């Protein structure tokens, strides 16, 4: 029996230790309130506090959520037992989510009053992982979540920020996301990040001009590679910030398509804002004249000949404007383009005698012809008009005299 007694004693002592520990926890630490305890009251979804705010909690949803296994006062830390104060202290998410809190502190959304966690993550009692369609930060829900502030009537407008949601929703990214449900399509946080969103003026920001090619390149890797090899990519890499990056031509949110007339109408002036001499000589061509009339998709704009992402000088054999490639490049629009056809100069300057002497003299001759013919005949016709009118009046008054 002795071994049995010893065993029984051991059992007892273990129980005693457990009981002691339990008593310690209950006495020293504040009591952990089970969800069921609180839900006894707060499970009523119509429950309101004395200022009219809803304080009901959807119990089943809470237990299904990411925080379903937490006790209520894991978050509502100042509530220790019942009855509890009328106005418990605000919940500090940072207690567990310190990393996110730190990122947020340095971001454009640092003001916790204006941007509480719930402004993006939604109902605190129904937080789901971002891979769950019920989450406010599930990729397909991100634009609507951000758009609540960054849309047409959003609070972001109070800070002078433009409404970007409609532009995004109409873009190829927005379309892929909202219509096709493509999870890989860029949503707001793909480019801007989430907790640590920085202004585009901050060199650390993924939307800072120099970082944009890499940001877009996260998905558009091949285009990024092309861009970095081209003249503009090299310029940006060398710190020449006047060079365009993706968003200068495609815009940031609307993401204009090269096939859209809006893009074709605005791309030329964008290139021309730096390449002024090239724009003015382009303006003299039929390409520009027809293209300026709006939307004509098939007349050559800058990048139809120069390429878009990997722009190379004519001296580079790989450039579409390298002499050896011109027949192919021009031939894309001009069926039957041949070696003599491509001697056409798309940037000839009829005002430059040294560069294009033949053209210069042709223009000079035409202008002189126009000026001399018109000058002579305008004078001739005005004198004639005056004289003929004078004779007419004289004749009439003579007739009048005759009749009198």
């Amino acid at each position: 029996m002795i071994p049995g007694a010893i065993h029984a004693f051991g059992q007892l002592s273990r129980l005693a230790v457990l009981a002691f520990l339990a008593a310690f926890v209950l006495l020293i630490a504040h009591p952990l309130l089970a969800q069921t305890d609180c839900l006894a009251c707060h499970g009523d979804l119509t429950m309101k506090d004395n200022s009219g705010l809803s304080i009901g909690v959807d119990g089943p949803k809470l237990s299904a959520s990411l925080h379903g296994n937490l006790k209520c006062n894991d978050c509502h830390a100042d509530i220790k037992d019942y009855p509890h104060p009328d106005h418990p202290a605000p919940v500090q998410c940072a207690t567990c989510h310190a990393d996110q809190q730190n990122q947020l502190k340095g971001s454009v959304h640092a003001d916790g009053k204006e941007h509480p966690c719930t402004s993006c993550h939604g109902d605190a009692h129904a937080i789901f992982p971002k891979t769950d369609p019920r989450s406010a930060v599930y990729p397909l829900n991100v634009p609507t979540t951000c758009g609540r502030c960054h849309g047409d009537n959003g609070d972001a407008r109070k800070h002078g920020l433009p409404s970007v949601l409609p532009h995004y929703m109409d873009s190829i990214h927005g379309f892929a996301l909202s219509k096709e449900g493509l999870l890989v399509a860029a949503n707001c946080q793909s480019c801007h990040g989430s907790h640590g969103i920085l202004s585009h003026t901050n060199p650390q920001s993924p939307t800072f001009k120099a970082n944009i090619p890499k940001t877009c390149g996260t998905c558009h890797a091949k285009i990024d590679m092309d861009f970095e090899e081209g003249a503009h990519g090299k310029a940006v890499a060398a710190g020449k910030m006047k060079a365009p990056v993706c968003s200068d031509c495609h815009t940031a949110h609307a993401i204009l398509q090269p096939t859209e007339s809006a893009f074709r109408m605005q791309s030329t002036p964008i290139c021309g804002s730096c390449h002024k001499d090239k724009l003015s000589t382009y303006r003299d061509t039929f390409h520009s004249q027809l293209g300026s009339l709006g939307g004509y998709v098939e007349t050559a704009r800058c990048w139809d000949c120069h390429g878009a992402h990997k722009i190379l000088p004519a001296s580079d054999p790989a450039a579409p404007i390298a002499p050896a490639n011109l027949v192919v490049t021009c031939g894309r629009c001009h069926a039957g383009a041949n070696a003599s056809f491509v001697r056409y100069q798309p940037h000839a300057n009829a005002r430059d005698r040294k560069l294009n002497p033949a053209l210069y003299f042709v223009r000079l001759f035409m202008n002189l012809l126009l000026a001399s013919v018109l000058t002579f005949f305008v004078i001739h016709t005005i004198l004639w008009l005056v004289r003929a009118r004078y004779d007419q009046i004289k004749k009439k008054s003579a007739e009048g005299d005759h009749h009198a």
Partner: protein
Amino acid sequence: MPDLVQTAQPSPSAPASEGRHIIRFTAAQRTLHAVLFSTFLGLAATGLPLRFSESIWARGLAKFVGGFGAILFFHKFCALALTIAFLIHVKDLFQRVLVKREKGVFWGVTSMVGNWKDVKDIFAHMRWFIGLGPKPKFDRYAYWEKFDYWAVFWGMMVIGFSGYAMWFAPFFAHFLPGWALNAVLVIHSEEGLLAILFIFSIHFVNTHLRPDSFPMDMVIFTGVENEEEFKHKRPLEYQRMVAEGKLDARVGQKPQRWFLNFSRIVGFIAISVGVLLLILTLTAYFG
């Protein structure tokens, strides 16, 4: 100029009070002018938005015509129609000179080719403008009319050739130097601009809007001119006809009322469109 005497119909004895109507243009010549001015208006209306594509009205006008695609289509359509009319005219000239052995095509008082009298007329006319001499007497074609004719003839070849060179550039590139492909646009647009400015201001005023003809010289539509007007405007031709006894043979039918009204409407529309295009051109040019 075909001999008008032969084409003239003997007139029914018209009442003296109405005066007789003298034939000045054949039906073929009037048709040629009609084709010329309608296609020219079409070419101008579709060419100007291209020439001044940066101007505020260009896009609106392009849209009115039916968009950038329609603009090119109409421009080429009118160009083809005008080319055909031009070729028919050249064929007629060859036929008259080589087949019919007609005299007076290249020289003489009824020729379109300028002569020494035209040079003298220019100076005499200008002296008359400023009151330094009598008004010169003109024959069938006055110097400014000959200028109009040759301006169109030259313009047709220059604008036509440069236009076709752009239309079929890869083909023309075979025998044109490289810079010429650039030059054809300069030539086409400058010569086109000259034609537009000239026709819609100088030709309109000289031929239609000056006091003697105001508001429109209907002879290019009806082909006939009142005898008094004919005598006043072409004294030399009138005297010659009388002296040679050919005047009676040149008397034509008084134009029908409906045809006269129809011509007036067409003519006024043409002149209005032309003046409108002239205003647009000037606003774009100086704007």
